[in-house]
């Protein structure tokens, strides 16, 4: 701070702190972008609590089921949300999931690489794809919608072509035997808190199989990754300088550049983030299923964007939250699993989702206007 700045600041106005306290906790809460998604999730739980409360949907097994689905989507939705806050889209997330899957499976099965090296290889490819997406968007100034739409086709096509060229098929099975004793694979394939579920089972608090082991064996890895990703992304957005740069890059690219924010680098790193998140998703799924499929992750990019939007992200960038995207994913996962427990024909699932999304977006839009525009 310069001398002059100091002299200007020397005249402290009193009473500032009193005014700060006037803002109630409730109002602050009402102003958060994730309010719509949190409220929506509560409504969804109340709804299924009423119509499916006695069906086993909320048993340990049922809960873990819809949490697993939500968590998988949540991992990519959070990365998509951060990129959207930074002002860009990534439509290649779904194709990246398929691509990452075969990047793990082909080297591990056909080239004899250890599984952990294949996993690292897949993540390295993700960084490359993300960097390529990012640099293309930043350097050409083209809309990311177009650039990543092209990448959607390129990656999906390459996945199919390469897999068929090498294996003659579109699926690569046989991974399950490789997971054991692998130094990395456990991070994506191990249920945690097994002791808790065993104990709950022994106390007859949760449902058991006929052999006496609990039906729900532990928290699936996706849930742990999901929670970690939510916390990490929220910390970045709210508590770091890089987080402020993300908001600035998405809010006003030129303004941010003028005050010294490295907008290009921020955007490229966010594109790498979505590709890496897609690879986490792919690794969990491939190891869980024991096989890679070239069509895996199809349309996931749209679900991820939808979850981010339900979670309060603005399509034009500069506004949103990771917690919101997490709740958006939770709504999706809960509805998609919950509908099996109701009498409703599952054909109606997408209608329900679409309506849910519309309501959330209208509500979020209202909140955002209230918070960010002059009255």
């Amino acid at each position, binding site marked *: 701070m310069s001398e002059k700045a100091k002299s200007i600041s020397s005249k402290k106005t009193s009473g500032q702190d009193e005014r700060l306290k006037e803002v109630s906790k409730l109002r602050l809460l009402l102003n958060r972008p994730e309010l719509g998604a949190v409220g929506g999730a509560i409504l969804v739980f109340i709804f299924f609590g009423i119509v499916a409360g006695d069906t086993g949907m909320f048993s340990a097994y049922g809960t873990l089921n819809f949490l697993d689905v939500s968590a998988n989507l949540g991992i990519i939705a959070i990365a998509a949300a951060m990129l959207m806050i930074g002002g860009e889209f990534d439509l290649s997330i779904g194709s990246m999931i398929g691509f990452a899957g075969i990047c793990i499976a082909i080297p591990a099965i056909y080239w004899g690489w250890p599984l952990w090296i294949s996993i690292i290889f897949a993540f390295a490819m993700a960084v490359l794809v993300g960097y390529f997406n990012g640099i293309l968007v930043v350097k050409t100034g083209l809309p990311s919608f177009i650039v990543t739409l092209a990448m959607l086709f390129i990656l999906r096509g390459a996945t199919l072509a390469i897999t068929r060229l090498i294996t003659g098929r579109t699926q690569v099975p046989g991974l399950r035997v490789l997971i054991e004793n692998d130094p990395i694979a456990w991070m994506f394939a191990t249920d945690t808190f097994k002791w808790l579920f065993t104990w709950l089972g022994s106390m007859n608090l949760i449902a058991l199989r006929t052999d006496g082991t609990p039906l729900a064996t532990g928290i699936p890895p996706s849930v742990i990754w999901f929670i970690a990703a939510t916390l990490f992304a929220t910390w970045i957005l709210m508590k*770091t300088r890089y987080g402020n740069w993300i908001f600035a890059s998405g*809010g006003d690219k030129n*303004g941010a550049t003028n005050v*010294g924010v490295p907008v290009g680098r921020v955007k490229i790193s966010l594109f790498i983030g979505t590709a890496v998140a897609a690879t986490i998703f792919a690794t969990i799924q491939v190891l869980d299923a024991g096989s890679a499929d070239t069509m895996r992750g199809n349309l996931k990019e749209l679900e991820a964007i939808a979850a981010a939007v339900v979670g309060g992200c603005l399509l034009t960038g500069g506004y949103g939250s990771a917690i919101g995207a997490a709740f958006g994913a939770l709504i999706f996962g809960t509805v998609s699993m919950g509908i099996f427990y109701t009498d409703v024909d599952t054909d109606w699932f997408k209608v329900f989702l679409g309506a849910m999304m519309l309501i959330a977006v209208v509500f979020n839009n209202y909140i955002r206007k209230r918070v960010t*525009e002059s009255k």
Partner: protein
Amino acid sequence: MSENLIEFNNISKFFGKVIALKDVTMKLKKGEIMCLLGDNGAGKSTLIKTLAGVHKPDEGEIVIEGKKTVFDSPKDALDMGIGTVYQDLALVPLMSVTRNFFMGREPLKGLPFLKTFDIEKANQIAAERMGQIGIDVRDPSQAVGTMSGGERQCLAISRAIYFGAKVLVLDEPTSALGVHQASMVLKYVVKAASQGLAVILITHNVHHAYPVGNSFTVLNRGKSLGTFNKKDISREELLGMMAGGEELDKLEVELEEMNRINN
């Protein structure tokens, strides 16, 4: 001579065959407000960008506190204490007052490799700074979009001062504002100058410039028509010079001609 905080001596800037600026000279002391007046295309924008380090002058020299200086980049200009507030203000409406205030220059705290954005400190400074201007920021985490145009302008100026500006360059700070808002901004500009800053106020609005300026430089078609102290020139003379008085006279004659033909 060294009592001048900043001097622009015979600055020229060419873009290919176009002469954007020719032999422009300006001198500013601490606490002085100089208004740079000119119509569209007079070279105001080029001059601002030269001041801000975006353009390098092709001829002439910039002298700051008696030392000849060359700006290689906008950052150089910033480091030398030239704080430029562009017309678009470089504010993000969706972001909070605090996050805007410290955008790109966030205060950090914590461990060396795990530094976090010190949001409490930032909030406190932002609220304090806005309080000094007399803007009631009840909550520094409120979005800038909720503020009026004048308040936003003041926030951008306040930010430039906080980050060490000695010379404030303000690009059309009142152009999009109503009378009340404009006077609020101008009041703040006068206050900043009284604290020892030199202010270059770029405008095409003589009515806003005349009450606050100590001296006036008029640009016309890339050339300076001279710098005048307030006591030496009237508002009307300035207006005439700026618009190219002859042109207005010519227009009047032409209009009369048209009226005669129509009747």
